[in-house]
């Protein structure tokens, strides 16, 4: 029934099957919206956050989706600014995933703040010294950029493309896309960095605090770098998952390979920097605050101990680096899949550590390590954008020519 909207020369499942597939994500979205309604109308008492845990699951989710959404800016940067032409075959999807991630971040922020109707005060009464201000500005501008980058793809829908104006608009936008992509990369560098700065500047919280350069703590650069490294991994991961669900090969291996290689090197350099940062922080920064490095890990209530650091740097850092950098290993599809999955987990763990631990970690000597378990409302509203993202990606895949190589890789037999 929707065949007129489906791109030419590709095969899609039946509308019924598609609808059936959308039931679970749609249900999750409804569940999430109900939780969001509770948070908006009854207040944040619906969460399990408290005065010690003002930053919790949501902020982590925000940082994580933005980090993994970094694939859009970095792939765009490689494609339009550096000129890696092969990447045109995955850029649409990268933009799409990025767009979903950034929409998620905005939505979560809108639920997270205590007075959503006053959220715009961050623009109106901006305090330029605040990292969050920088985040909000760059985030909303970059979301605009992503929307602009997504628009031409939308215009390529078979039905829309028939309108001459839309066709021309899409065509023109393609021509100047490099400018937009460069702007996006610039914005992204800043807000990814600012998000790193969010905890890095907290000089009252030794666990999060980092030294740095000018107004930027080292985490500023580490966040940008890790997003650039792990964002493409998430793009590839999503792409692989899409391939699994659709049962089709959508992007050629050489594209994966190129992106994986770049990611591997990015992740490798990042991990070196991260280790250096951790060492400097542990040996130089932390003692000036009166703490020892191990105090952050062997506190009585801290059940994960040092393992979380080993997980982040070793299992989800060095291991994927080794796989991605070595040609033979990354060409092995299961190793490749493991590597990108670990890289994505690694960046999420990093964001978790940087949000949750500075909150939990007692600073006053007579303070307690506070444990926190999110309420179902928090989980539901965190799952909401994920489910929403799945729906957007599914719709886009169904009705838009997201993968330029799809037709070539999956020729449709003319009946």
């Amino acid at each position, binding site marked *: 029934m929707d065949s007129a909207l489906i791109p030419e020369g590709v095969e899609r499942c039946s509308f019924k099957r598609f609808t059936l597939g959308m039931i679970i994500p749609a249900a999750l979205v409804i569940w999430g919206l109900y939780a969001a309604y509770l948070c908006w109308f009854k207040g944040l008492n619906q969460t399990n956050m408290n005065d010690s845990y003002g930053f919790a699951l949501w902020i982590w989710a925000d940082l994580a989706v933005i980090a993994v959404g970094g694939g859009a800016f970095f792939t765009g940067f490689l494609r339009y600014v550096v000129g890696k032409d092969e990447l045109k075959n995955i850029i649409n999807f990268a933009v799409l995933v990025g767009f979903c991630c950034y929409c998620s971040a905005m939505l979560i922020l809108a639920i997270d703040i205590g007075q959503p109707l006053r959220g715009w005060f961050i623009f109106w009464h*901006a305090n*330029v010294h605040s990292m969050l201000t920088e985040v909000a500005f760059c985030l909303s*501008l970059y979301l*605009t950029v992503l929307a602009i980058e997504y628009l031409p793809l939308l215009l390529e829908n078979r039905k829309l493309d028939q309108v*001459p104006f*839309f066709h*021309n*608009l899409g065509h023109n936008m393609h021509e100047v896309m490099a*400018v937009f992509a460069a702007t996006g990369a610039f914005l992204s560098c800043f807000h990814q960095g600012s998000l790193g700065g969010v905890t890095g500047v907290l000089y009252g919280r030794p666990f999060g605090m980092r030294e740095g350069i000018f107004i930027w703590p080292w985490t500023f650069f580490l966040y940008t770098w890790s997003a650039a490294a792990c964002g493409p991994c998430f793009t590839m991961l999503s792409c692989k998952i899409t391939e699994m669900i659709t049962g089709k090969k959508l992007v050629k291996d050489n594209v994966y390979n190129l992106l994986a290689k770049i990611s591997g090197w990015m992740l490798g350099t990042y991990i070196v920097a991260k280790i250096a940062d951790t060492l400097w922080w542990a040996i130089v920064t932390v003692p000036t605050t009166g703490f020892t490095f191990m105090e952050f890990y062997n506190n009585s209530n801290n059940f994960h101990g040092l393992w979380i650091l080993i997980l982040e740097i070793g299992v989800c850092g060095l291991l994927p680096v080794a796989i991605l950098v070595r040609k033979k290993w990354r060409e092995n599809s299961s190793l490749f899949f493991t590597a990108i999955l670990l890289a994505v987990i690694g960046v999420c763990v990093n964001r978790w550590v940087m949000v949750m631990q500075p909150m939990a970690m007692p600073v006053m000597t007579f303070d307690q390590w506070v444990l926190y378990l999110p309420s179902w409302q928090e989980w539901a509203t965190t799952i909401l954008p994920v489910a929403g993202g799945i729906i957007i990606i599914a719709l886009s895949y169904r009705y838009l020519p997201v993968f330029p190589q799809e037709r070539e890789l999956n020729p449709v037999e003319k009946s």
Partner: protein
Amino acid sequence: MFPNVWEWAWDAGHYIFFGGMWYVLAILFLGMNWCVFKAIKDTKAGKGGGHDH
């Protein structure tokens, strides 16, 4: 955000920050306008509608 908001302080931080913001906004605004106006021009010239690229 605007100089008429009373917190507006004319210091370097604001120049850089808001300078960057307006610069980016200008690029996006001009870029999009260029695309839209060129598309209108092209459409009037009879381009599009088929697969001519």
